[in-house]
């Protein structure tokens, strides 16, 4: 019997689903799994019992919250897919700010038929079993996760930073050499250091390294020594890391004797 899966999108750019739709082996996937729900691919399908639910996006509306809870109730295992689902995403950047004010600024007096909230990761609302990081995730990782589930096993999640892959690829370190604001040291690996390989500093799109091992404080110190301002460092780290536990505290610590 084929394993049943559901693929869902909450508030996000739907890029993770698009990536999943574009994988080369999509026909193999369709052959080996019964896809009972995938709104992006087909308007048919109801949320029903599945073995594994893949959910991209963060919870930004009450409807998102309700849908997520329904998905969770119906799934044996839930996989948070991508930076929005795992860390709140770019829309989670306003976390901690005055929401009412931002809402007024964006929507003015328009009538919105739902209650909106600050984008937060899935784990704030439901139990998450696995994380498939990326913005969007890499094809080989999507396949790896699906294939391990398919044989009744589970994927081994990476817990180390982009730097490891950058060194394995043999790329020059642009943080050392050019003093570029590379977030590789705090960002979870899996992309094979694509951006640093093209001389572009990592922006941290895959999200912080898990298990509390993203050392934003050490990196802020390194950036500071290269002459970057606190404001700049903060803004850059917040793009994808705003909701990382103690991010503010970690940056403050480095600059504490200066303000």
């Amino acid at each position: 019997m084929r394993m049943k899966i559901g693929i869902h999108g909450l508030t996000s750019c739907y890029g993770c689903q698009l990536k999943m739709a574009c994988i080369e082996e999509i026909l193999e996937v369709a052959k080996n799994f019964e896809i009972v729900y995938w709104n992006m691919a087909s308007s048919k399908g109801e949320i029903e019992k599945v073995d594994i639910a893949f959910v991209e996006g963060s919870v930004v509306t009450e409807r998102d919250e309700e849908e997520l809870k329904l998905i969770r109730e119906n799934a044996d295992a839930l996989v948070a897919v991508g930076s929005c689902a795992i860390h709140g995403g770019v829309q989670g950047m306003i976390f901690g700010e005055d929401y009412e004010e931002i809402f007024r600024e964006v929507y003015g007096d328009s009538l919105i038929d739902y209650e909106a909230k600050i984008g937060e990761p899935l784990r704030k609302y439901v139990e998450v079993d696995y994380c498939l990081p990326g913005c969007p995730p890499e094809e080989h990782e999507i396949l790896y996760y699906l294939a391990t589930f398919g044989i009744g096993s589970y994927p081994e999640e990476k817990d180390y930073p982009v730097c490891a892959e950058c060194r394995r690829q043999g790329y020059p370190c642009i943080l050392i050499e050019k003093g570029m604001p590379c977030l590789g040291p705090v960002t979870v690996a899996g992309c094979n250091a694509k951006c640093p390989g093209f001389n572009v500093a990592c922006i941290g799109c895959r999200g912080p390294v898990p298990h509390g091992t993203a050392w934003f404080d050490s990196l802020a110190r390194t950036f500071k020594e290269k002459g970057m301002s606190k404001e700049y460092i903060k803004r850059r780290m917040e793009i994808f890391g705003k909701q990382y536990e103690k991010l503010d505290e970690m940056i403050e610590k480095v600059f504490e004797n200066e303000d």
Partner: protein
Amino acid sequence: MRYVKIKGDKIYEFLERLKNYGKLYAPVKISEKFYDRKEIDDVGEIAFDYQRTIMPAKKYFIPPCEEMFEIDMEENEYREKLEEVEPFVIFGMHACEIVALRILDGVYLNEYPDIYYERRRKAGIIIGLSCLPDEYCFCNLRRTDFVDIGFDLFLHELPDGYLARVGSPKGHKIVDENPDIFEEVRQEDIDAFRAFEEKRQEMFKFKGNFDNIRYILELTMQDKLWDEESEKCLGCGNCTMTCPTCRCYDVQDIPEIGGKKGKRIRFWDSCQFRSHGLVAGGHNFRETKRDRFLNRYICKNSYFYPLGTSYCVGCGNCTYFCPANIDFQENLMKIRGREVIHE
């Protein structure tokens, strides 16, 4: 030992000839400051004055990521991925790197040899090259600044060429088969070689040796220096990835969709990562960043008995390639009780 000389104007011809013995790899400049070894087509691109490469020579023997074998459940088969390795030549290895390879030999070629490593090691020809230290080098403290075994040829820079020490049957073969490249060593070459070695010794930042450092380290593991230095650490693993003797790898099984086929890969791992110390049941031998940070110091300074050296060869890569500017050599000097003065 047999000594011969390569006249300066013959060095590029020599490098061309090396291609007859296998694919030639040598250091080239890859960016503003960094060097790495690449396969050489035009020998004019080779950087003779490189100090260190961002990827250590271990990459030719333990690739950063390799497929070990594939599994076919339908055929009930298991297929090794390593075919016969074609001969290859690594040009320009410094003394510390050659010692590092011998350390890897001790780990990979014991009573249970690693066949992947062994096949590549047998296929590799090692051509050493003399060097002058920069501020990051401390091979003198590690007693690895001069190498007497582990190479096929070792070239020492002379004002008008290179004095070559022949270190193996393969080295003899290269010399014998290319008589037009090599000539007799003369008295002035010996004088120049001596002067080079003298000058080199003078250039090291610190004098003496690190023989007692592992004991001092063991006795000072509670020192607050380790709190401060590990606090700075990014946990990025650059130090271990660029270390010529770090040899930890991780192994992963990658099934294909449908589960009928799959492969096993292995890739460079680092003790600076959380999962390195994680074992079944969820216990972690190195739970904190401090634990992981200190682990590298303990590991690198422990004793490699077959060579009578430490696992660290004093190449300075871990300091040079540390984005957080953590100075390995200085930290060891500090726990030894030396004051380190910055100019």
